[in-house]
Each structure stands twice: as C-alpha cells, then as structure tokens.
C-alpha cells in the first residue's frame, strides 16, 4: 500500500511539472545521486559527459537505486561574458563584462518503477526572462539475459523525449555534445543543421532502442510536432510567432547505430545517426507543402578514465541536404525561408578533447565549424550569402566539489556568418565576436 501511495505521488508530481503547475520546492541533493547513493563522478566525467556506468544508468532508464518520493534537483549558473569588440554602442552582448545570474533549472529526475524513469528539466532563462521545459526524456526499459549470462545480454527500451539526440548516451551527438555550457548572452553563428539543436524542445520524439552485449547500440525514433497531446513537451516555447517553433509534417524518422568497445580504462564508440525531416516553412501556417532536411552524421568517442588522469575526446560530422521543395518553387511561404536554389547543403564538424586531473582540474580544446552552399537569398544576413562559421574553443575547469564547477572559456572565431572580415557589411569582423566566458555552475 505504501508503495502504491508513493507511486501515485510520483506520478502526480510528474503530471504537475509536465502540466505546467508550479513544482514543489527542490530537495538539496541532485536527485540521481540521492537515488543511487553514489556521487556525481560515478556517472559523469564532468556534467553532462557520461562515464560507461553513466551510460548504463541512462540506458536502463534512470532506474538504478531506490525511488525517491520527491525526485527533484536544482541547477543554477552565474557568469560574466566579455566580447572582444562589443560594437560602437556597446550592445552586441548585453551586460558585457558584468556578472549576471544566467539561469536556473529544476530537474524532475529519477525512477518511477523498476522499469520506468525520467529526466525532465525545467529551465529559467534570466536573459529571456521566462521559463520553459528544457530537455526531457522518459523511458520504459527492460533487460534480457540468456541462460548462464552474468550480465545483461540485451538492454532495450522505449523513449519519449523532446530533442533529437537528447536520448543518446554518447556525448558526441549534439544535444549533450560540446560545448556543454556556453554564454547565452554572446552572439552565436546564425546557421546550424536541424539535428544540431534546430528542433530542441519543439518536437515529440518517440522510439525504441537496444544495446546488445555492450557492443551494438541501435535506435529508431520518430519525431512529430509537439502539439495536441504532446504539447507539454514544448511547454513554454513560442508557438504563436513565425519561427518560434518548428512544425513538422507527420512522423519523421531518426536512426542511430553505434559500436562500443571497452577495455581496461578505455572505451571507444564509432557510430552513425541521422534523420529525415519534412518541415513546414512557416509554423504559423498549417497544411502547406514542406521542405525536406536529410541529416546524415558520423560520430566517435574515446574515453580513458583512471585516477588521477582522465582523457576524453568526441567528434562528429553532420551532413545536411536541404531540399527546398516548398520554399523554392513558391519563393517562400509566409515568414519562411526564401532560398534562391532548389537544394543546398550544410556540413558541421565538431571535435573536442578534454583532460582532467583528479576529476578536479580540467582543460578542453575544441573545433567547431559549419560550412555550406552559399545562397544570398537564403542567408540574407550575409553579404556573400555564405553560412560558414568556424570557431576554436579553449576551456579551463575547476571542480572544487563534485556539484560545483568554475569554467573559463575562450571562443575564437576565424569565420562568422560567412566571412572572416566585414561579415555583416558594416565592417564587423569575425574576431570581434571572440568571447571570454566565466561561468559558475552549481547543482544541488
């Protein structure tokens, strides 16, 4: 009976958060750590990067440990952003050089039953001044062990989530890929592929996955507009303004196949993922023709985890083919894109390497680049019509205790929105957007 009451309470709380009623106040410890009794480093190299055990925890649906009656945690961030050239009116980056409370999140994260668990993040953006549902992933899982097996031969599950790749367990895919934290105040390149955050918190994703003998991971999911019964998955997003959220046609497939191998303190993964999306040009105008985006990606991850040395590296390459089947013949629908070509491409490369000493002192170097077909009609912000941007990132981390991280991050742009110099036609250069970002991250 007590178990039944707890289960009911958990579901009520879950419904409360997803249903937009105010969540109860948070507990004082990150909820997964409280559920498992283990500390952050069991699952994370550094949040959000997962260790092999962290991947197992996620694949098994966040169900390891003892269910908490109120599985909540909180996260807060304060930061200072300094832009190299903040413009003649000092307004390229808001509050440039001043400390700001960047935002905060409440997590509803934990197991509901031995087979059902969730990760649901509700975030408040201080700059935007509003809160909304952030990443969400709810799972139902199972395990299969053959006769005499001493570990599960097969882990399988179903996931309902709201951001392509948020369900993935390797940190080479976009949703939990690098940069893990970046300034929300600094300007960022205008163009990225659709799978690289273009649908985040706007869609309902549902699918099934398996992980066989810790070696082969496969997943097939489908994404649809998060409206109707799924609208909670985009709660707080702007659905009324053109470009506010994406509207998709039907159910759009996503695939993932990865090979994983672990030996000694090492683990490596090589994989592919991608999706085919039919998207309405203007989300406020239903029932129009659609543009088609085909994203095909390769990715890899390597981790070497010991005490005191930890080294990890991730890389991904994303190729996006954009078929403007609706927008090109019509010259644009509503406030949607106005491509001058029937078909264009984007290519994104992300690569990063991280070293941690004693899981306390960290350094990261990263390369992030997006290039693509020039089209002045499509990329109207660029005099050259090029979407190209390239950045090098260097980052230092200090983790005095496992739930506090101090980060100093420098982003160096060699190309921004199509050019290295005068990219906006008003004399602004890519390097003017170079950003120094000091961030304090606390979870409790």
């Amino acid at each position, binding site marked *: 009976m007590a178990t039944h009451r707890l289960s009911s309470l958990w579901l009520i709380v879950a419904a409360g958060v997803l249903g937009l009623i105010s969540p109860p106040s948070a507990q004082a410890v990150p909820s997964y*750590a409280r559920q*498992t*009794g*283990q*500390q952050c*480093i*069991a699952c994370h190299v550094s949040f959000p990067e997962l260790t*092999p*055990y962290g991947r*197992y*925890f996620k694949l098994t649906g966040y169900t*390891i*440990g*003892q269910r908490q009656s109120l599985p909540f945690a909180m996260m807060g961030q304060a930061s200072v952003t300094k832009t190299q050239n903040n413009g003649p009116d000092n307004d390229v980056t808001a509050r440039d050089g001043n400390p700001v409370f960047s935002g905060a999140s409440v997590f509803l994260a934990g197991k509901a039953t031995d087979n059902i668990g969730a990760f649901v993040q509700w975030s408040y953006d201080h700059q935007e001044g509003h809160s909304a549902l952030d990443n969400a992933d709810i799972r139902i899982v199972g*395990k299969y*062990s053959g006769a005499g*097996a*001493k*570990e*599960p031969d097969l882990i399988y599950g179903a996931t309902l989530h709201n951001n392509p790749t948020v369900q993935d367990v390797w940190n080479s895919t976009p949703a939990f890929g690098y940069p893990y934290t970046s300034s929300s105040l600094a300007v960022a390149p205008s163009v990225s592929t659709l799978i690289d955050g273009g649908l985040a918190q706007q869609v309902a994703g549902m699918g099934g996955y398996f992980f066989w003998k810790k070696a082969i991971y496969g997943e097939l999911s489908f994404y649809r507009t998060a409206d109707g019964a799924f609208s909670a998955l985009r709660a707080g997003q702007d659905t009324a303004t053109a470009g506010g959220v994406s509207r998709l046609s039907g159910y759009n497939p996503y695939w993932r196949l990865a090979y994983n191998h*672990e*030996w*000694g*303190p090492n683990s490596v993964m090589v994989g592919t993922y991608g999706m085919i999306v039919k998207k309405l040009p203007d989300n406020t105008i239903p029932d129009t023709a659609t543009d088609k985006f085909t994203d095909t990606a390769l990715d890899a991850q390597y981790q070497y*985890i*010991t*005490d005191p040395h930890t080294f990890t590296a991730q890389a991904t390459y994303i190729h996006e083919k954009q078929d403007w089947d609706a927008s090109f013949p019509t010259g644009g629908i509503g406030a949607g894109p106005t491509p001058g070509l029937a078909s264009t491409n984007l290519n994104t490369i992300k690569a990063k390497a991280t070293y941690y000493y004693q899981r306390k002192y960290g350094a990261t170097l990263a390369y992030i680049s997006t290039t693509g077909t020039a089209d002045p009609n499509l990329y109207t912000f660029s005099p050259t019509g090029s979407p190209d941007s390239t950045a090098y990132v260097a980052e230092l981390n200090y983790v005095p205790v496992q739930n506090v991280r101090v980060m100093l991050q420098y982003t160096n742009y060699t190309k921004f929105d199509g050019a290295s110099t005068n990219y906006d036609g008003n004399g602004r250069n890519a390097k003017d957007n170079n950003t120094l970002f000091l961030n304090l991250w606390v979870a409790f």
Partner: protein
Amino acid sequence: MKNEFVWMLGVATIVVAGLAGAAAPDKAVQQAAATKANELCSACHGPGGNSISPTFPRLAGQKEQYLENQLKAFRSRTRAEPDAHDFMWGIAAPLDDTMIAGLAYYYSTQPPARGIPGDPALIARGKDLFDKGVASKPLPPCATCHGKNGEVVGEWPRLAGQHAAYIVKQITVIQSLLRAAPVMHGIVKEMNRAEMEAVAAFLQSQ
C-alpha cells in the same frame, strides 16, 4: 623467532576459521544474488566479477567472508576512502544481511579470469617483494597472509589477478588512513610507490 611463531599461529587460526566457513545460502538467496549481480553489480564489476576497468576491483573468486565484511563496511560507512564513498556507500545501503551473504557467496564461487601480463622485470621484482618482504622495513612477506601468488588463505583477500591500479590505490589509501585497516596500515606504512607498483604488477599477472 617469536614473531614468526605469532605470525604462523595467526595464519593457522585464520585458515581453520576459513575452512570452517558458513554454509552456502539457500537456492532462493543464491538466485536473488545472482540476479542482483547480473543487473547491477556487473555494470562496474563485470560479468561474474571479472571487471574490465581497473577503477573497479575484480571480485571473482574473492574470499566469501572478506566480501561480506567489505559490503557491511560500505553499508555502515566504516570503509570510507573516496571511492568507497563515491561508488559503494549508495549501492550497499539497501542491502540486507541475507543479500550481502548471497552476493559474497556468488562472487566467491565465480571463476576468476586469467591474470593480466605486464613488464616481466617489474613482475619479477614484485614477486620477490611479495615472497620475501623488505627486511629493513616493517614489511613482512605478503604471501604469509595473502597466500602463494596472492591466492586465498583464511579471511584475507585474494589478490591474484587483481587490477594493479586498484591494488596500488588500496595500499595508498590504507597507508594514508583513508581506508581503516589497522593491521595492513602497520605493514604498508613505509612501502614506497615503486614497491607498490612492483607488487601490484606481479599480483595482476597471476
């Protein structure tokens, strides 16, 4: 001579105690423990307790009483080095005595994987240390308690085949009193890093 007598008497007592060990848990407990080991413990300690990552000790073939003692020490938080705190306190907290006994029995009866080869010269130096100790230090032959090649004697832990990095870490945390093990602390307190690594390489290779 007197010291040797005391050592031999102690070891003999422990061997007798070990031989007189508890009866196997009943089948239902064994099954529950095997399921727990499969679905939870194997995530870090590997299938049947033969872990892949040196962060996590190999448990296959470990002494049953030692495993039981350690799980209870995690549960009561009396074993408190950083890794015990970070990884094992939470795992052990919900385990009752029956499950602990079942898990201890399960891992003690699993066949240990073969040792991991290493630098022959380092292994030879480690074997010499393990067999003879260091006369100039309070470091008696390890084999006296841990058995020939680190295999089981009495209630002391089996060390054969254990990850070298794990052994070095345990000696370090015992030496620095982060892990409370009064007997071992007295033995390893003057052991240097090179000696630890040599002994660990030898044991890992067994």
